[in-house]
């Protein structure tokens, strides 16, 4: 449930996550520099071709990510027909579609762990400010672990309140739930300290060696 990744062994799947993100960023900037409908249509075709042809993604994997904004795109197009003209409208809409499809291709061909590694790498300049990239990875992993935990605690409190006769009392649920999970997080923090993940200042020579966790 927690990933939009579609397994595969294509060139796109095997390309470095950092490279794919850099290309995507370049596309995002580049498409805003041109105003030609033909270039936009070409970008849409290219992104779709890479996704379906090269990466061999199922059509559904792309549609799932583009579908939520269909209505918005249609509204935008109609708005442009009424206010500006067909050319401006099609450029605006096609540009968005191209970016959406390209982003969907990157997301579907790259594992969450690889992208988290890129985030850690991007955060490495922050080391100057005393931020340790490994801790960012730790927080991301903790979050993924906390999501089912919080959902489960919420369900338990809802049951407890229902057992005491409260029907659908969502606001009254929030406070005990928050206090419970805040206590839990504090305990997790202590456990991390006990295992040596304390807040010692960042050290420079970490760059070469693998980060001890």
């Amino acid at each position: 449930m927690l990933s939009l990744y579609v397994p595969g062994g294509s060139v796109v799947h095997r390309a470095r996550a950092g490279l794919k993100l850099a290309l995507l960023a370049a596309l995002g900037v580049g498409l805003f520099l041109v105003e030609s409908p033909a270039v936009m249509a070409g970008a849409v075709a290219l992104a779709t071709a890479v996704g379906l042809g090269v990466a061999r993604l199922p059509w559904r994997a792309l549609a799932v990510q583009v579908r939520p904004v269909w209505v918005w795109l249609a509204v935008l197009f109609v708005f442009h027909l009424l206010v500006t003209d067909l050319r401006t409208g099609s450029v605006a809409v096609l540009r968005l579609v191209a970016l959406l499809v390209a982003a969907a291709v990157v997301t579907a061909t790259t594992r969450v762990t690889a992208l988290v590694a890129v985030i850690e790498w991007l955060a490495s300049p922050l080391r100057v400010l005393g931020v340790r990239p490994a801790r960012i990875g730790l927080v991301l992993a903790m979050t993924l672990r906390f999501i089912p935990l919080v959902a489960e605690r919420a369900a338990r409190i809802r049951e407890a309140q229902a057992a005491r006769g409260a029907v659908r009392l969502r606001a009254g649920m929030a406070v005990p739930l928050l206090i419970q999970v805040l206590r839990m997080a504090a305990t997790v923090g202590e456990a991390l300290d006990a295992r040596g993940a304390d807040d010692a200042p960042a050290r420079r020579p970490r760059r070469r060696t693998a980060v001890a966790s």
Partner: protein
Amino acid sequence: MKSRDLAYVALFAAIVAVLGLLPPVPVPGLPVPITAQTLGVMLAGSVLGAKRGGLALLVFLALVAAGAPLLSGGRGGLSVFAGPTAGYLYSWPIAAFVIGLLTQLFWKRFNLAWALVANMIGGIVVIYAIGVPFTALYGDVSLWASLTGSFTFIPGDLVKAVAASVVAVAVRRAYPVIELPTRHATAG
């Protein structure tokens, strides 16, 4: 930051994600349903304070970008950051930070009224101030059209600001997380 602060940050990122699981409330005549996730933004700011609250939302967005479908309706991945309403997403960490900043400012005499002020400025004004021009710029529509398009969300946002404020005041009484003397020096 202490390990406990890291855990708090992760916790609120998770809470925003869980709020995304709540069924969204569809509004007649509107393509985007009202979701509970901005409630998480408000809670992160007014329970954790500026620094940790803002970081919690950054962590949440990082996971969304990494492909976890944590936005309401199971959306996620990089494409949501290229979408027309991406400005609202970008505004979340800033909103949580501003709410936290105001909450810390009012902390000594924090009550429902101050909580409301913090949540409305940070959770509504800041979010719209970033989201509305972004949508206008992205879709090449006028600022005014973009603004009127988002007016439908105001009632829902007000309800969420009240709910977040009530909860934040109750949590402060029972389990205060913001510690002023140390926290105030490092925030910012």
